[in-house]
């Protein structure tokens, strides 16, 4: 009893009466209160501001910099965007143009960008916590809902929050978006944009409705097992199917296949395609035709040197002879719309002789090793039923048209705001960095490692492609939906323009819009035709459709020859000349010829001396050396005068983005030049072609 009394003695002495206790407590409180101002005084940002002052003191521009320096916390405040960025409290040199040489962070100047820092603040692009005034709090915070800084390699993602169309300065983002749309990502995943539109896929997966007519079950099996082993450029990903799964899916697809509408015959018994014994001369002729028809604009093929050469708009044709059946190939080349009404391939009007030689050439391209080790027993009904179930589970119908299997909405998670996915909602794989970019990148590369039962297929992307895709996904943020509307640079309104009438049918048959853009809809491989009727002369167009030639000296590729009949050419020419006109140019306002020789001579003078047009264009192929712009030797028979005049006055008004400079010509100069150019009728042969 006595011992504890004694041990508490000193404690009791301190607090032995209430007055003394009050005194001690007051002293402690005072000490505690002193901590707050001390902590404020020794804060991180004050240290950085002292360092900054030390740094600028010894510079030549010290006086200016000192005058601009304001002590204290700095912030960029944009109320309607919820931006409160205090980054400039430590990053003091960001807006000082003269500090471009400073490499010590955090005092360097911001690299040049097309925006003012005060316009958007820092966090809109860099993420992180703008309100914080400590390095750790601003940069590294990973506590939800706080975002850490975005690593610099994904920086272009931030541009993509507002800019939804391709930008010159964001090649990685642009590539990522092209990949997202071109590799089928958008067929399973939905991506909604802030303007309410939905990103659409640009790939063209073939329908499997009549697949048994096209190829064998063995080929389908081998393809399903690994599409990239058939062609490295294949866009279909690898679903990592087991042998049994590939067997059952191939069984189902063959069994589900319907006969083609025209020939009506029952599907041929499934067997590997045997390359026919082909005459060598035919093959050479076919190869020449393959080149002349510019098949390589869309299709790639491995050449003798082993390089894959050609476009990526359509499937690679290396080994095509081992893939498709001869009857199918014949039907396809005769008219691809029979097999696939939605195909992008034009209906070439090859003669039967051309058809035979082209077929022979294509069938000589074999890759017999692909199905060599595939031996399948005839399918049982159970296998077919199981195949159907697998086709549903793996979402084959999200891309391909398959009879009796319908596309489901929201097959895969919505990615509209994936770039802001909270870390708390992510299941990380052991060993990976706990950041959103690391997660997205890993998910793109190894989707199946994130848990059992996942169905996302394995893609074979290069590291650069993975980074590009990650960048495109990181652009899909919450902020892009919540930021002020006027910040959004929307995509140009998508157009689904299709020409009408008989010409429209013909143009659909020829798939003109695979290459040509017309009124906002179509490809970008060939010139936009929206103003074609205002620019060219009827006679020239009629001849061009019969025998297309290139009008640019450096361009070898030209429009393929479609063997159009005279009637078809008349229909197309009439339609284009009548419909594709623009109000800026009245083509009848100036005559095609009959300009006074003096005017022509004056135009020639202007062409060669004042405006130096021959630097880019050729009028006389013997003397001029302009290889940049179109050849003008016969421009007088190709374009109409009013168009030339309007073009000279303001090229960009007629074709936005053209590199032909606007020279601000006077009316008289433009008129003289027009007269000179209209006098360039070319040789009679050229004009009448």
């Amino acid at each position, binding site marked *: *009893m006595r011992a504890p009394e004694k041990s508490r003695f000193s404690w009791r002495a301190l*607090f032995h009466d209430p007055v003394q206790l009050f005194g001690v407590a007051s002293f402690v409180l005072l000490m505690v209160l002193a901590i*707050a101002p001390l902590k404020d005084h020794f804060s991180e940002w004050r240290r950085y501001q002292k360092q900054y002052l030390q740094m600028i003191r010894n510079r030549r521009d010290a006086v200016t910099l000192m005058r601009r320096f304001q002590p204290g*916390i700095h912030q960029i405040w944009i109320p309607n965007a919820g931006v*409160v960025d205090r980054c400039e409290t430590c990053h003091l040199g960001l807006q000082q143009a003269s500090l471009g040489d400073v490499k010590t962070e955090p005092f360097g100047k911001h690299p040049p960008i097309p925006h003012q820092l005060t316009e958007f603040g820092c966090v809109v692009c860099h993420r992180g*916590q703008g*309100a*914080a005034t*400590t390095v750790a*709090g601003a940069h590294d915070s990973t506590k939800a809902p706080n975002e850490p800084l975005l690593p610099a390699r994904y920086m272009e993602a931030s541009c993509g929050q507002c800019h939804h169309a391709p930008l010159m300065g964001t090649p990685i983002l642009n590539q990522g978006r092209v990949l997202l749309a071109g590799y089928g990502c958008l067929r399973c995943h939905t991506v909604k944009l802030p303007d309410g539109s939905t990103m659409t896929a640009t790939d063209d997966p073939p329908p499997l409705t009549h697949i048994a007519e096209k190829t064998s079950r063995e080929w389908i099996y081998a393809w399903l097992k690994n599409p990239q082993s058939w062609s490295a450029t294949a866009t279909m990903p690898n679903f990592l199917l087991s042998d049994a799964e590939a067997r059952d899916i191939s069984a189902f697809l063959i069994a589900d296949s319907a006969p083609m509408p025209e020939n009506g015959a029952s599907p041929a018994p499934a067997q590997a395609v045997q390359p026919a014994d082909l005459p060598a001369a035919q093959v050479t002729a076919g190869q020449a035709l393959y080149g002349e028809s510019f098949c390589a604009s869309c299709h790639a093929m491995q050449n003798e040197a082993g390089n894959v050469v050609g476009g990526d708009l359509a499937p690679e044709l290396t080994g095509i002879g081992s893939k498709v059946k001869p009857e199918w190939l014949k039907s396809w080349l005769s008219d691809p719309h029979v097999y696939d009404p939605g195909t992008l391939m034009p209906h070439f009007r090859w003669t039967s002789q051309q058809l035979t030689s082209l077929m022979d050439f294509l069938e000589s391209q074999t890759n017999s090793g692909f199905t060599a080790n595939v031996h399948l027993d005839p399918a049982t009904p159970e296998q077919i039923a199981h195949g159907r179930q697998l086709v549903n589970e793996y979402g084959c119908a999200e891309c391909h048209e398959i009879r009796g299997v319908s596309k489901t909405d929201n097959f895969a998670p919505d990615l509209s705001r994936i770039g802001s996915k909270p870390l708390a909602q992510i299941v990380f794989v052991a060993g990976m960095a706990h950041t959103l970019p690391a997660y997205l990148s890993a998910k793109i590369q190894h989707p199946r490692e994130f848990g059992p039962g996942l169905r996302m297929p394995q893609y074979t992307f290069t590291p650069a492609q993975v980074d590009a895709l990650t960048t495109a996904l990181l652009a899909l943020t919450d902020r892009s939906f919540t930021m002020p509307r006027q910040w959004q640079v929307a995509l140009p309104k998508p157009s689904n323009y299709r020409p009408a009438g008989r010409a429209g049918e013909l143009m659909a048959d020829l798939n003109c819009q695979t290459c040509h853009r017309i009124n906002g809809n179509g490809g970008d491989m060939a010139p936009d035709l929206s103003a074609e009727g205002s620019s060219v002369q009827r006679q020239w167009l009629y001849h061009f459709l019969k025998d297309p030639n290139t009008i640019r000296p450096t361009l070898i590729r030209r429009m393929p020859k479609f063997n159009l009949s005279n009637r078809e050419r008349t229909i197309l020419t009439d339609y284009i000349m009548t419909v594709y006109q623009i109000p800026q140019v009245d083509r009848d306002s100036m005559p095609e010829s009959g300009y006074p020789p003096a005017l022509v001579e004056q135009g020639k003078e202007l062409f060669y001396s004042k405006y130096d047009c021959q630097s880019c264009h050729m009028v006389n192929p013997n003397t001029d050396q302009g290889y940049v712009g179109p050849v003008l030797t016969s421009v007088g028979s190709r374009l109409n005068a009013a168009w030339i005049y309007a073009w000279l006055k303001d090229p960009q008004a007629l074709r936005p983005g053209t590199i032909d400079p606007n020279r601000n010509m006077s009316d008289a100069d433009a008129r003289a030049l027009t007269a000179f150019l209209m006098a360039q009728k070319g040789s009679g042969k050229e004009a009448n072609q």
Partner: protein
Amino acid sequence: MAGKFDLYLDRMTKSRLWRSIFRSGSGDSSLHRAQKIQQNVFLHILPTKVRRRMLRLDATWYLGTLTLGTFMVLVITGILLMFYYHPSVPQAYADMKDLRYVVSAGLFLRNLHRWSAQAMVALVFAHMFRVFYRGAYRPPREFNWVIGVILLLVTLLLSYTGYLLPWDQLAFWAITVGTNIAKYVPLIGPRIRFLLLGGHLVNANALLRFYVLHCVVLPLAAVLFIVVHFWRIRKDGGLYAEQSQADGRKPADTPSLKSVEESVAVAEAVEKR
């Protein structure tokens, strides 16, 4: 020096102004001293007389007073925090950051509020254990024990409603869990939850309701019950002291009870850490 000070003090307390405020007048007689307490609006809820022994630390450990002290700290820091805080979804968390990074001593203010809140809960429990194990809840103090239990509930509710206000993930999920527990009350559970949240989800309405409860309703309730609690101490015969024993000896501290109190205090301290 001391004499001069006393002279001035005496002159001041006899002045007309002083007398107009403190009507009891000066004087050291028992009557005067009792009147000083009784006639003061703030002090009259306290007993006019207290045993000197009861003012010593080991009589009560000042647990009740310390609880009141933390409550005062909370009121003061709370009012200061209210100058910086908007109970709105887009602003609440940003205000936390402002307090953390740019308001002078804002972090200190917030920490003081938070730790005082923790201390208050701990002290309320310690106070109640002390009262319970000393048997101080027995008649005639049983009603004051009930008031004390109500004050415990108010304290816990203050602590709980304050939890949502930072509007971070911790707050969001704590309130989600808490209100989901309320849902399991038979029959009226879902209604209680709806009433608390002002909807079916923890959102803007919930934030506003918790803010109003935390800053207005519950503090007023606490003040009301604290007043009643203090007033009842006086009415129930002052602080509880063990009765003198029949043979006239001073009451001895019972060793067994003391050790119980100490072990509880230690357990509380450990729990708090």
